[in-house]
């Protein structure tokens, strides 16, 4: 079951890389976060770790529901460009993504020997990190770049769950707090832009 969801996690991120519409990208991000939350719940149940179960629930509430909802409302409020064409052409992306996957598996190989549990998941987390960076790089618009940053955070979260069997509860809650702060700052930045545009008009 864990293997299935980790596959879905990676697949949703790869699909997000080919997405050309903003709302669809937000949906893929929400799905990616949902699989992450379910993974935390599954691994938490397996390890009998209550802290990870709480983290899983918080992940689903904040990342799979809250953040996509806020980003969607921001896009309506501030009139984001919803046609987001990646700068890297599809035919090149099709070659680049598997290359990144192979490269990161090769890169993570020495690390996976040192981690007792879920060692392959560590390699997937690292490849997700690279793919999230690619998502940030391949778009000129700011909204997909934000989604790329949030996906990168998801990848790190997956790494935390798999490589370390969960980070301390306080740290994970702190990371959630910072994520919410990031959303507040993003809102303020867009708000400012919007106000300036209105003033110019």
């Amino acid at each position, binding site marked *: 079951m864990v293997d299935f969801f980790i596959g879905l996690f990676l697949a949703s991120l790869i699909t997000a890389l080919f997405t050309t519409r903003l709302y669809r990208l937000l949906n893929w991000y929400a799905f990616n976060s949902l699989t992450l939350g379910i993974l935390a719940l599954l691994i938490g149940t397996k390890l009998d770790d209550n802290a990870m179960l709480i983290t899983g629930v918080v992940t689903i509430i904040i990342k799979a529901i809250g953040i996509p909802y806020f980003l969607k409302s921001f896009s309506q409020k501030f009139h984001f460009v919803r046609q987001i064409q990646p700068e890297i052409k599809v035919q090149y992306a099709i070659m680049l993504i598997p290359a990144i996957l192979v490269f990161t598996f090769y890169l993570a190989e020495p690390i996976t020997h*040192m981690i007792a549990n879920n060692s392959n998941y560590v390699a997937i987390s690292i490849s997700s990190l690279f793919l999230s960076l690619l998502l940030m790089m391949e778009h000129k618009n700011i909204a997909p770049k934000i989604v790329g940053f949030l996906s990168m*955070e998801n990848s790190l979260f997956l790494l935390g769950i798999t490589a370390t069997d969960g980070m301390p509860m306080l740290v994970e809650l702190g990371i959630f707090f910072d994520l919410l702060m990031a959303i507040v700052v993003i809102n303020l930045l867009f708000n400012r832009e919007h106000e300036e545009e209105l003033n110019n008009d």
Partner: protein
Amino acid sequence: MIELLLLPALIIFGLSFVKSKKVHKLLAFASFLILLPTIALFELPKPYHLLGDYLVADTLNVYILFVSSIVGIGVALALLTLNKHVRVSRKAYRRFYRFFAIFWIGLIFSILSNNMGIYWIGLELATLSTVYMIKTNHSNAAHKEAWNYMIVGAIAISLILFGIILIYASAKPILGEDAMNFNLLLAHAKEIKSPFLFEIGFAIVSVGMFVKMGFFPMNLWLANIERASFYPVAALFSGILESAVIVGFFRFSKIAMEVNYDHLFTFVFIYAILTIFIVAFLIFRTKDFMRLFSLSGVEHMALIALFWVSGGTFAALLHFGAHAFLKPALFLSTGVLESQGKYKIAGALRGYTGKKGTLFWFLVSLFLLAVISLPPSPMFFSELYGFGAMIDTAKSSHHLLAMLGAIFLLLVLLSIIFYKFIDVYQSMKYEGKEYQKKVYASELIALMIFALGLVGLMLPSTLTYLKGI
């Protein structure tokens, strides 16, 4: 005690919602309250547990917190006259203070943290709050750079988290959840079963920190951001944010020294020399104050990292203190030097009249000459001690000649920077047209606080304290 440390920032945060004009003065004076708990921390026995094992005050972080607090006070004072030099709305002004308070809270947590996770959370909080401070300037460049900072800063901070997770994974088998604790990690560093995993984690953390400090290959991103934002933001970056980043580097590298000193030294040595090599030529080509001071800050941080890994703790900390006082002072003085957004270097030190004006150009001249390590600047002594530590390290290895060659190269690069600063100083003092410029009392007091801080660094008691760390 932690409540007292956070109190000034909380007062500033609360007062920033008050719409009265008079509130600005209160905001500046509230910042002075930080001195009471910080001085009290010096007197308390170390390590002093502020919040269980999460926040612990020791000799190193109390010193860094004290230096950062003085910078915070100086910046809060200089903020009083921000609207006299640049166009800023009252609403944006109040928001600036609000985010300044959040920034301060984040950094107090980062600096005093004894836990990798809390350290990261504090740093992330400070990074995010800075984004809005950059955006207070309503220019297109500031808007672009605010987003740039958000994205690149997020990547840097994510790299740090990535490295922390790997370090935590390497130490969890022996320490359990306490593997996040810096002191415990240091005590059990030699028992880590996967040193390779730790070293990868450390390398990634360091790269994240180096990106945040503007090291190779990201030398210009910070300079561009500081150019685009209002001058107090640059002062906060160089005086406080970089302090929090470097204290993290000190803590992580202390553990890495125990795991494999040779690997750590080679990695940081190559990275720092490469950074200084590039920065020296970038400084030579700069045409405005902000970029000049910002790139000089990158050079100082690289030297601090180099001295620290060479075992020159005293040199690194003295250099750090001098950098933390000099750079914010210079950044704050650009508010007057560039009067109303003119970036001209020529004649920037001319046109000052009266006691305030004379004192201003005298202090700025002193800071400019001190920043290039002219004696009796603390930087002169820190560099002497730092190069001495590098030679001492090389003596115990078989690479003495290589080290001497590296020091010679560093001296050549530093002389390029020296030449540029002297050229800039002469241009400021003897070239260009003379325009009347106004200096306000609050910014002069801020500069005097920094000057006193520099003098304080050279006091025998301070030097003894630094040698004891």
